[in-house]
């Protein structure tokens, strides 16, 4: 029996739904090639952060060229024509990655404010990216900025990026929105073509001795998948946008669940960091074997089969699920 693993996501046809997500592995051409060899359907390059653009530009301007000149020293650094500041290496990376692999290469921008840095979206497109992922990594701390203000700012950013590019645009979100379905609809109006659920926050820890915060990044495991499944299932029937799962996909079965909940593709980062780029081939094999065993002929048959509209007991995705779970402990 033939099995069609291809999927349509962000208007692109992927050979299979496994996407290597933005992370250290996609920062390096060798591992990017290894990911393609392992069967990745697409590759999301490591993120270029807003702070990298603004911080680096302003920081470089300040610390390399901002010091007070003196009679003896007009400057402290050489100022050669080739000395272009700014994250131009990222654009080169996009170009090289695009040349190195045949699968779609998706650029990634990470930021939360509107501003001059957005022009890098266009530069990433010009560098050859097949699509752009915009990671709205936002931690609201200002009590004066209510949810409307926060969402307006993020939507404004999406509109700015949309205006700057013509390639497909996906938006990577956190789960912390009052009404995710409503916000996703607004994103659609703002010009997004897809949603990635969800980004994972750096989790600061406290150093008890030094009374300082320590920045840590814990890799995900499969236990983080259910949160994604719920929201994929909720959004899948109500939005025309491409949906990708990100976080908690470590095995073939995880990927299958995400697809059943409505994902058009699933992203892998932690699993590949832990086990190497070759693990993607393993996940793909597990998927393929399960699908063959269960006589699915395509991903499309499977996709969304367990979303809120089609699953046999939707209450489990909704509030009643909570009551049932509590009851089970009694």
């Amino acid at each position, binding site marked *: 029996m033939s099995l069609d693993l291809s999927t349509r996501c962000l208007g692109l046809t992927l050979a299979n739904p496994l996407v290597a997500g933005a992370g250290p592995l996609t920062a390096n051409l060798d591992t990017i090639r290894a990911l393609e060899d392992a069967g990745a359907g697409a590759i999301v390059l490591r993120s270029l952060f807003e702070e990298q653009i603004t911080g680096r530009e302003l*920081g470089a301007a300040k*610390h390399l060229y*901002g010091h007070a000149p003196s009679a*003896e*020293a007009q400057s402290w650094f*050489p100022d050669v024509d080739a000395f272009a500041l700014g994250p131009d290496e990222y654009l080169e990376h996009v170009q090289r990655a695009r040349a190195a692999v045949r699968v779609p290469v998706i650029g990634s921008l990470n930021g939360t404010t509107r501003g001059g840095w957005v022009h890098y979206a266009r530069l990433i497109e010009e560098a050859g990216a097949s699509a752009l992922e915009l990671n709205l990594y936002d931690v609201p701390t200002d009590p004066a900025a209510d949810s409307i203000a926060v969402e307006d700012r993020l939507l404004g950013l999406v509109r700015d990026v949309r205006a700057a590019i013509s390639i497909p645009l996906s938006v990577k979100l956190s789960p912390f929105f009052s009404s995710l379905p409503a916000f996703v609809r607004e994103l659609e109006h703002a010009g997004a073509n897809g949603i990635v659920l969800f980004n994972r926050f750096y989790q600061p820890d406290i150093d008890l001795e030094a009374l300082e915060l320590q920045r840590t990044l814990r890799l995900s495991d499969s236990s983080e998948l259910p949160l994604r499944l719920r929201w994929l299932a909720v959004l899948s029937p109500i939005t025309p946008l491409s949906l990708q799962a990100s976080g908690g996909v470590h095995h073939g079965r995880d990927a299958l669940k995400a697809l059943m909940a409505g994902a058009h593709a699933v992203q892998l980062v932690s699993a590949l960091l832990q086990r190497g780029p070759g693990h993607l081939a393993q996940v793909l094999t597990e998927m393929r074997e399960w699908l063959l065993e269960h006589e699915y002929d395509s991903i499309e048959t499977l996709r969304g089969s367990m979303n809120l509209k089609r699953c046999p007991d939707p209450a489990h995705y909704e509030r009643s699920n909570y009551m049932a779970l509590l009851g089970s402990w009694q």
Partner: protein
Amino acid sequence: MSILVDANEAVASVAHRVSDVIAIYPITPASSMAEWCDEWSVAGRKNIWGQIPRVEQLQSEAGAAGTVHGALQAGALATTFTASQGLLLMIPNLYKIAGELTAFTMHVAARTIATHALSIFGDHSDVMACRQTGMALLCSSSVQEAQDLALVAHAASLESRIPFLHFFDGFRTSHEVHRIEGLDDEVLRGMLDEEAITAHRARALTPEKPVIRGTAHNPDTYFQAREAVNPFYDACPAIVERALERFAKLTGRRYRLFDYHGAADPERLLVLMGSGAETARETVDWLVARGEKVGVLVVRLYRPFDARAFAAALPRSIRSIAVLDRTKEPGAPCEPLHLDVLAALVEAERAVRVVGGRYGLSSKEFTPAMVKSVFDELARPQPRNHFTVGIVDDVTHLSLEWDAELDIEAEDVTRAVFYGLGSDGTVGANKNTIKIVGEETDLCTQGYFVYDSKKSGSTTVSHLRFSPRPIRSTYLIGKARFVAVSQPGLVERIDVLELAAPGAVFLLNTPHSPEEVFASLPEDVARGIVERGLRFHVIDAHKVASDVGLPGRVSTVMQGCFFALSGVLPREQAFAAARRAIEKTFKRRGAQVVKRNIDALELAEARMSAVPAPSVLPERRRAAVVPAQAPEFVQRVSAAMIAGHGNLLPVSAFPPDGTWPSATTRYEKRGLARETPVWDSKVCIQCNKCALVCPHAAIRAKVYGADDLAGSPAGFLSTTWKSGGEANARYSIQVAPDDCTGCGLCVAICPAKDKSNPRHKAIDMAPLDERRDGERANWDFFLELPESDRSELKLDVKHVQLAQPLFEFSGACSGCGETPYLKLASQMFGDRMLIANATGCSSIYGGNQPTTPWSVNKQGRGPAWANSLFEDNAEFGLGFRFALDQSVDRARALLGACAGALPEELVRGLFEADQSGELGIAAQRARVAELRRLLAAHKTREARALETCADHLVRRSVWIIGGDGWAYDIGFGGLDHVFSSRADVNVLVLDTEVYSNTGGQQSKATPIGAVAKFAAGGRSTGKKDLGLIAMSYGHVYVASVALYARDAQVVKAFAEAESYPGPSLVIAHSPCIAHGYDLTKSGEQQKLAVDSGVWPVYRFDPRRLDAGELPLAVDSGPPKARVADYMKNEGRFQAIAMRDPERYAELVALEERYIAERQAFHEQLAGLKLKSAIAQGAAL
């Protein structure tokens, strides 16, 4: 093609395009010529023959001259750039190059030679020291000429085989930004004779046709052979003349060997060369227009001096001549040009009265009024000879008077003066303004920028001229039509109206509204504005800059106001051009920087307001420049210099031998900080690290008795001292509010956090304004508290900080990483230190007047400090040691001679004192005091002689201090010799890994991966292991230290080094602005340097061998951080990462490997199995 350049860029552009090999060494004000060449070569720019010139930085100017000499001998077209002491170091090679008739051209931004004092500014004392070498000397007077004659020099040298030294005035010409006509490659090709180039290359040494050069001759032949060059020198002037004619044909610009300008039938004539000639021409035009028969003869080809051409250029009507020299040769019958003119006239049998005078030493102003005063003098029946002009000489009464109010500049010349801080971008914005006006109009433009010599909070004064005619005013603006002040505080410190012409526009950046601003001004400023009828405008430029996201960068705002107010360009055109200029200037700095600057420009005009005349003037007077209790010398001399009136001081004000008093920075209250640390005694753990790291000794700790608190100001903070000692001992941390620069290092390093609010530490930065008066009273009270008795202090970080710093309030950069080491040394040994200080940052913040940070204690003792040169500092300090040793021997001999009449115990004590520690030193000082008391009653000659040298019986500590440019490069040979000498000297290398003072050129201490000037692609050679080289002698104490990362080890290393009775070397990691990061993070970054092994921390003490121990102790431990993590935090490394990530990755790997190998080597060295060798008595 019109270009906006300074002379250094213009000259470098010519030299780079007509050279194969460029060997250089940085020196102000010539450095930027070499920097331009390096940057162009890195960027792949080619010479006119299609080759990228090879640019190489050497270890000294002597090295650069040797390299150039070698390159010439091997057939290259070579050049170099230098000035002042650097030129002196090249002289031996200049004789050789000339003696060998080598086509060669070098370019000199002429600068003062260090005599009673160093000066970075311009005069001809350096080039005049070369007039005997056989080099041709060709002088340019302006930026345009400097470019043009640079080419003529190259062309004439190739044809004549005489090497050319082309020079122009340092700063006044080298740094004057001027709109000139550029030279395209075709002109360069048209000027250079291909046959002469081929001939030059054919003279190269080659084994195919071998010859030898550099032979040795004996009395039989040397003389005749030396005379064989004569025909070449005889032919040279005509060759130059032909080259000038060719140049005129190609460009339309005509120069002559001697250019006369002035009346058709002049009677009085000035002869001079350099930038002063431009002012002389301008003044002559003005005088001739008023009917005076005057003229000026400008000398261009000074050597070979063509006496016949000179005589021919002299108008027949001349009756009297004044020859002006911009140099001083004490003891000579006349200055050099004067002498040459006299000789030429005698040989030409022309009977004309000739007098000579000096002007313009060290860039002293030379104005039309001074030119006129010389002409006036020539008109007298008996004009004075050997006069000076530009100063008031009330000692030998040689100076001419001049009319300081004379203003000959035409009304249609726009003259604008901008007062700013170095850090606020004023100079850069003004350069942009000149460019904009130059590009948008046919106006001639000129910019000249004056900096003070402080490295933190330095002020700049920009002088801008825009004229419909060529600008020849090579002097500062005296009557400005537009005066802008970019920092509100400057009105309190500087006479900002000094240069404002009546009716001028006066623009002030101030937070005050138009209605309130007058009340905020000092009385004299407010009155000046009203009385001179100034058109007063205000703008809150800091607010605008903050609003657009460029806090502190007020320059673009001020530029916007200038365009709106000055009318030099139509408003719309000006703003459109300014926007384009910002895009161009900041494009490579990123879109954010561009956008924010454009926002600042556009908001400026809208936020600016005209200020109506006030109904009443304020009464507040400016604070005195120095406090009333300052010593007489400071009141009379230093105060005038601080106030910017140093030009008015007469000769008699100055010590004739360059000897200046110590401890004077305490009277120069600069008030730079907006925020200063605030101490919370409840949170404080009394570690004193804040005081330890303060670069300016502006936060201090004291322990004192409770009784001492009597009369303390209400806000003075004090708490119980927790570390033992006397019962009821009290403790205070106090900040000097007017001396703190607000760098925040102390707060960053403070380890004591409030447990319920860890963001709050024992010291936090807080706005100063409202606390200033209280803190001043607190500081004054704190100073009066008793100092700790240094003989009782433990030698650890905490207690050493209770010793009085004898290095304080220097002008070093905010956050400087060098000065904390100097301060620490001064606390540990300051009352017995002699310091030999190499030229560099430390000699500038340590010795640049008006004030001196090296200080004295209550007994009047403190470090005695001197700077000789850059290259000889180790030897200079060695000389100190020899002299001291001789004095000690003399004192001991005299003591022996007097011993019979003195108590035996005292004499024995004096002879045998253990002075290895503070207690022993204090005891010996007491013995010497007793000795002096007893000697007073003795009548013998020996007793009188012993009184003169008895102080030498107290051990003195010789410190040889300098930066890595000195220790690793130019002074290394001497340093190496000092190591070999076994003399008891202490060498402290303040290692910033780059030439900091001259603007970030690489040294051999620059690490792999760092971008520096002359290493624009990132240095790929490992940092020289200076410590290892010193260790290889076996008898040298060596320590590598890092104050923020391992403070206890530094204190230990300093104490060990000082007590070691032979040469000691301490290499100190010194964070610097040239590393390209926020220096408040330098504590963390230095820890990373140590933890990653990038900066090893160790002590090598040969004394340990005697105890059967291994001499090397590696104190830094095994690496626990990654080299890459260290490198990612500094701009000097990240500059490569941003430009070329792959190369960066390679350099990181290279540095990791280098560090690992060095680490392994040090570990092996530390663990060497020396025991058997030691047991057998073998020395290392």
